[in-house]
């Protein structure tokens, strides 16, 4: 059985609530989901809570996974990031967490963000590479990818056409991946 068929079978089992299947799903993607959560959320505890919620959501939506539309990893990341972005927005409304900038300064509201302990070498490399991007790409990546603003919100904040914002984000992410991959190439 090829991978995408196996993924469909796994998600069928997850939809039925088989504990073994949920465990398999976590074993494959738990670390990845945690890292994405850690990137966007201020504390480790909050990231862990988010991971719990995301896997519950993955179970709830398991019967909607279509292997013809996306690889399972893409589906997991899509559900995960949407949940995290919603969480960021809720936190912003409640004022419990400021937005994060790559240079560690506060957001437009003037509130100092809770410190994100991105100490490890990989994160430092990422932040450095983000800072080196062309201005528009850097700002769009910070706002959309790191802070969870929608592209329309970013477009309105910058006064830039939505298409321009999308292109900048797409090209910025591609350039970022190339440079970071080069940093870590053996």
């Amino acid at each position: 059985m090829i991978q995408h068929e196996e993924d469909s079978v796994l998600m069928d089992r997850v939809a039925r609530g088989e504990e073994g299947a949920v465990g398999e799903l976590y074993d494959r993607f738990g670390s990845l989901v945690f890292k994405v959560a850690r990137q966007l959320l201020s504390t480790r505890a909050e990231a862990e809570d988010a991971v719990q919620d995301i896997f519950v959501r993955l179970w709830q939506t398991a019967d909607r996974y279509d292997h013809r539309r996306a690889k399972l990893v893409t589906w997991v990341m899509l559900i995960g990031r949407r949940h995290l972005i919603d969480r960021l927005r809720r936190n912003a409304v409640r004022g419990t967490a400021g937005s994060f900038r790559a240079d560690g300064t506060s957001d437009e509201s003037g509130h100092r963000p809770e410190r994100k302990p991105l100490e490890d070498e990989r994160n430092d490399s990422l932040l450095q590479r983000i800072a080196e991007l062309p201005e528009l790409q850097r700002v769009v990546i910070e706002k959309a990818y790191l802070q969870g603003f929608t592209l329309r919100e970013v477009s309105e904040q910058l006064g830039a056409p939505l298409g321009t914002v999308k292109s900048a984000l797409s090209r910025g992410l591609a350039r970022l991946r190339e440079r970071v991959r080069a940093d870590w190439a053996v």
Partner: protein
Amino acid sequence: MTSVEPMTPRQLLELASLDALGLLDDVESAMYTRSFHDAPATVQDEVLRLQGEIANDLQLLPGEEPDPQLRERVLKAVADALALDDSLAPLARIGREHRQRDRDGSRRRGPIRLGGSGQFWRAASFAMAGVSLIMAYFLAIGRQASSELYDAFIWDDTERLAVLLTVPAKEFLLDQSKKINLAPLDDNAEYDATLYVNSEAGRVLILVSDLPDRKGRGYQLQAIAAGSTEPTVLKRFHSPAGFGGVRIDELSTTLLATAIKWQIATIDGTVLLSSS
């Protein structure tokens, strides 16, 4: 719903990363999915490859690993959610679609398999209630038809004419539509609504009873997609007086398939009815 030009292959490839990372909003994501399905197989394969690569790319992520205990917490959280779901009466889950495999191995949607005679009879009585509702809809249209048709004709309201002149309910009763009951948020409210959603055909039938007359200002059907808390407005409509139906076609099949909550709200966004 107004049709828009599908995305070109170049746009699909350029936006592949944004779609994979969940950075497109619901409408754009639905448009992306629709365009994806219309694209040549070579383009689809390239999009899938790119998106898989992006999603798996750990280079842009922190190096921290989760605690080993998080695995048990996740399993418990899902088990708790499952237990809560199981505590619902079977009637509340009827209509949930489970994927099945056809004999040729392809996937298709189908109704949930019910086990046990008790569940069968509850399901049968529920289905009968659905039939009664549909029959009442036809009768209501029959009584109201002449005056409403005349009004729609005089005011050249083609959308209203299409609703009154077609026979939408029968299709929704006989096809693979999922029935969704909406309850008013106000316990004292006397209005009610039921949806029949056919996500594969991209259409919804709304049956409403006694929604307040808003003097032409109308309502909107909205849905919240999986992984999101923000509703997407699917269609604005005018409610028929008393009891009647509104059919909506050409909706996003992706959004209909991934919606986890349905609402009817006023135009300014005040939610009146919601699914559980």
